[in-house]
């Protein structure tokens, strides 16, 4: 990006290669300073928040400056002086719900070129029956060479590929080229300078928004699909045609004062739809809580038409009141499930789920969040899943995250916006259809090591289980795989034999692509899981997980919450050299940033920087 007409952006290319769900994206931009004096050129790109930056480089006057991934604390220490004098700049900032922004600027001499290259990698997650590759492009001017190229290699076979962009007009639509063969898909988009033009007499560009590719692969039956490459294996498990397992779901809904208004309306709307969509085999209960706890009925009800109609009437009347008593509300839900199970009111083969929706921190009853986590874990005994939805920014996401993870669930943030109803329904849809419970994927002990998690409480419809590991024997011809789980009527058992993939047969001309993909996929998955472990569990396990995650992030050069990428810019004319640090944001940091943004922006004059004191202060003074 540049504000000066004297900078010419020669090219912007986004080159994404996906191999067995592992995506590597290289974003390259070349610009020329046409002016007779040196000037600052900015490079700003957005990447998915699920991705790790792995590389960054700048080429200026024949010299290449490369980012270096270091332990976060060491990076900070190394640049302590610069940090304390405010001379470093964080390169990564949260941007919207799905992305984070990487930005760097550099001073370029007159008539010189600069090339920026940023690489990031991620394992695409299957959600609601597809994978998604999201590329956000916002060149500020038209670009001589603009190109997005995505190549997808899926040895399982590609079921479908959809490509669309938020900025596609009728004129640009035909420029999206898509070629899909059995195991390979190629999507490209490369408008000319003229085609990028926003209007006949202006210089603006049409290219501004999200380019989204959705695809799915052919689902392998029985034990799934295993790929072995260069001593590492990855196992994808999401068999088709499984019947859903009935669920017993207790909705625990916050109705405290802060839910008043739009949030309450959106919750009602979402709940009405969710209740209507309940499967007739499911059982459900509704608990609303402010300071007090109210139950629709004392036990779960089968989702018959009659019960759903009555529940709808109850939901319609939900209104806000009181404060936030999370502890007692969740415990009431747990007790209800335990009691109904004991009294055999629920199908034996079914899954128990609590869905907690809250927008604030507990402030009535037990308000110590650690104690609430302890109480809930002790009550559930780890036997049911707790999914938490944190509505808005006033709830501590990390509290909900740990609460859910300790109880076989996950937490999700719901952003306060006009589409909050859809966000709530979307999350519910993801977890609404459990297909298998207690899924175990087993491999011969003597053949594999460094396995990622191989036990999963549930497999949901539309998702996928991924396990990766290292083979102890590089020359392994095959190995046996066992998959076990609890299905609707009987236990699910599948066994298979995996052999190394012959990439040369599948992709005769492109074997070079696959070199280290499986190993990096394994590393990415391992680090993600270690980072999760480092948040909950006993202290020594947390420490261990953190140390391992750090080691691997350094080894594989991933910018994670434990590592930083240090970018040293060329010295400026006055001889100063300001290091830049690219960090990976955690969900909590994103939320805090949004929370501050909301408070400060809405509350303060533009130049104001607030000062918070560590202890409460109560004062009275003159205006």
């Amino acid at each position: 990006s540049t504000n000066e007409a004297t900078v010419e952006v020669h090219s912007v290319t986004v080159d994404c290669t996906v191999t067995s769900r592992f995506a590597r994206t290289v974003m390259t931009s070349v610009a020329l300073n046409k002016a007779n004096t040196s000037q600052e050129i900015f490079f700003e790109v957005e990447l998915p928040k699920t991705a790790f930056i792995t590389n960054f480089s700048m080429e200026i006057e024949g010299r290449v400056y490369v980012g270096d991934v270091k332990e976060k604390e060491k990076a900070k220490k190394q640049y302590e002086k610069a940090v304390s004098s405010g001379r470093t700049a964080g390169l990564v900032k949260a941007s919207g719900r799905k992305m984070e922004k990487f930005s760097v600027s550099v001073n370029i001499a007159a008539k010189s070129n600069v090339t920026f290259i940023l690489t990031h990698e991620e394992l695409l997650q299957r959600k609601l029956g597809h994978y998604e590759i999201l590329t956000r492009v916002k060149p500020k001017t038209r670009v001589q060479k603009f190109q997005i190229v995505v190549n997808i290699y899926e040895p399982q076979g590609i079921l479908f590929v959809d490509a669309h962009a938020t900025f596609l007009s009728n004129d640009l639509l035909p420029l999206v080229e898509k070629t899909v063969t059995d195991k390979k898909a190629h999507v490209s988009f490369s408008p000319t300078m003229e085609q990028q033009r926003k209007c006949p007499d202006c210089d603006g560009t049409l290219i501004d928004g999200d380019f989204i590719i959705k695809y799915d692969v052919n689902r392998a039956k029985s034990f799934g699909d295993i790929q072995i490459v260069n001593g590492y294996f990855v196992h994808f498990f999401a068999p088709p045609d499984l019947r859903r397992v009935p669920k017993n779901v207790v909705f625990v809904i916050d109705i405290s004062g802060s839910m008043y208004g739009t949030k309450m309306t959106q919750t009602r709307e979402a709940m009405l739809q969710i209740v209507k969509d309940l499967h007739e085999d499911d059982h459900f209960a509704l608990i609303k809580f402010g300071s007090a706890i109210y139950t629709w009925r004392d036990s779960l009800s089968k989702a018959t038409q009659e019960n759903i109609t009555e529940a709808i009437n109850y939901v319609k009347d939900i209104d806000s009141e009181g404060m936030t008593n999370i502890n007692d509300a969740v415990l009431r839900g747990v007790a209800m499930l335990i009691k109904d199970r004991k009294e055999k009111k629920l199908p034996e083969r079914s899954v128990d789920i609590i869905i907690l929706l809250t927008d604030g921190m507990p402030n009535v009853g037990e308000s110590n969040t650690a104690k609430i986590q302890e109480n809930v874990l002790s009550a559930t005994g780890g036997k049911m899943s707790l999914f938490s939805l944190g509505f808005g920014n006033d709830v501590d996401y990390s509290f909900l995250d740990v609460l859910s993870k300790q109880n076989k669930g996950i937490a999700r943030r719901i952003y306060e916006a006009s589409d909050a109803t859809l966000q709530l329904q979307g999350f519910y849809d993801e977890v609404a259809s459990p297909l298998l419970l207690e899924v175990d994927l087993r491999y011969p002990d003597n053949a594999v090591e460094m396995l990622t998690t191989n036990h999963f409480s549930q497999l949901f419809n539309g998702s996928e289980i991924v396990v990766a590991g290292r083979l102890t024997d590089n020359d392994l011809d095959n190995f046996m795989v066992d998959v076990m789980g609890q299905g609707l009527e009987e236990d699910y058992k599948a066994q298979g034999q995996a052999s190394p993939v012959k990439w040369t047969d599948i992709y005769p001309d492109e074997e070079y692509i696959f070199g280290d993909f499986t190993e990096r996929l394994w590393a990415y998955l391992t680090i993600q899981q270690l980072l999760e472990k480092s948040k909950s569990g006993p202290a020594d396990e947390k420490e261990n997980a953190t140390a391992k995650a750090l080691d691997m992030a350094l080894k594989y050069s991933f910018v994670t919450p434990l590592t930083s990428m240090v970018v040293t810019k060329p010295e400026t004319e006055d001889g100063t050299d300001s290091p830049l640090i690219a960090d990976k944001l955690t969900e909590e940091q994103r939320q805090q940033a949004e929370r501050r943004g909301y408070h400060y922006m809405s509350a303060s004059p533009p130049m104001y920087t607030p000062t918070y004191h560590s202890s409460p202060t109560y004062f009275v003074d003159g205006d």
Partner: protein
Amino acid sequence: PHFMIELPEKEDALCFNINDRPGTIFSLVTDPQSGILVNGQIIGDKKIPPDGKMNTYFWRFGIVHQTLGVRLEVNTRDISVFQDSKWVKLLWSDSASLKGLNVDLLVTKERSLMVTLKDSVKFVVLLHKVWEKHPYHRDYLGFYTLDSHLLSPAVHGLLGQFYHGIEYEVSELRPGEVPEKPDATMFVKGQQLNVTRGWQRDFRRDMKNGENVPCWFVHNNGTGLIDGDATDYVVSGLF
């Protein structure tokens, strides 16, 4: 005067104004268990300023610690301390420190008085000096509680009732009269209030300009946020 309840754990603050006829004395802190009492008297501008808004300020505080037998009167002119059966007078024009058995005082010339009452409370009184010949305004005081955790649960008063925290929830942010000051709905003490996001100044670090602290402003003399209404806090004497 503006009242501010800063809640760093929530990264938030609440504020309200209380105005009444000049001369009115308000109870700011009262803790019957420890025998602590802080009352303040307000004063008005010299005459109504051109904007037609008559401001009131605190100009005099009476502070009593019955158990320790300490009594202080702080006003815009001087500071009087009664302890060990005698009165001591300190002037704002001098820096001074007084270390007693039960009370420590630290006067920073023309600026502030820090008071530490043994095992109970610590606070600062700020002196705002206004140009003597200012046509409307006059000197006034600010009162900042620094440490109140040792006070009993029974502590009350316009400030004291917040010493043990306040639970509230805010929702429905919406455009207010001024674009940068949105309105919202606050649920507090079982009531639903219309509040406005604004900011008020903390003068501890910058006596001249103050630091803006964003806060949820509760209208109508803090009605709904404070227990009862402002008139319930009017007392007849400084001690």
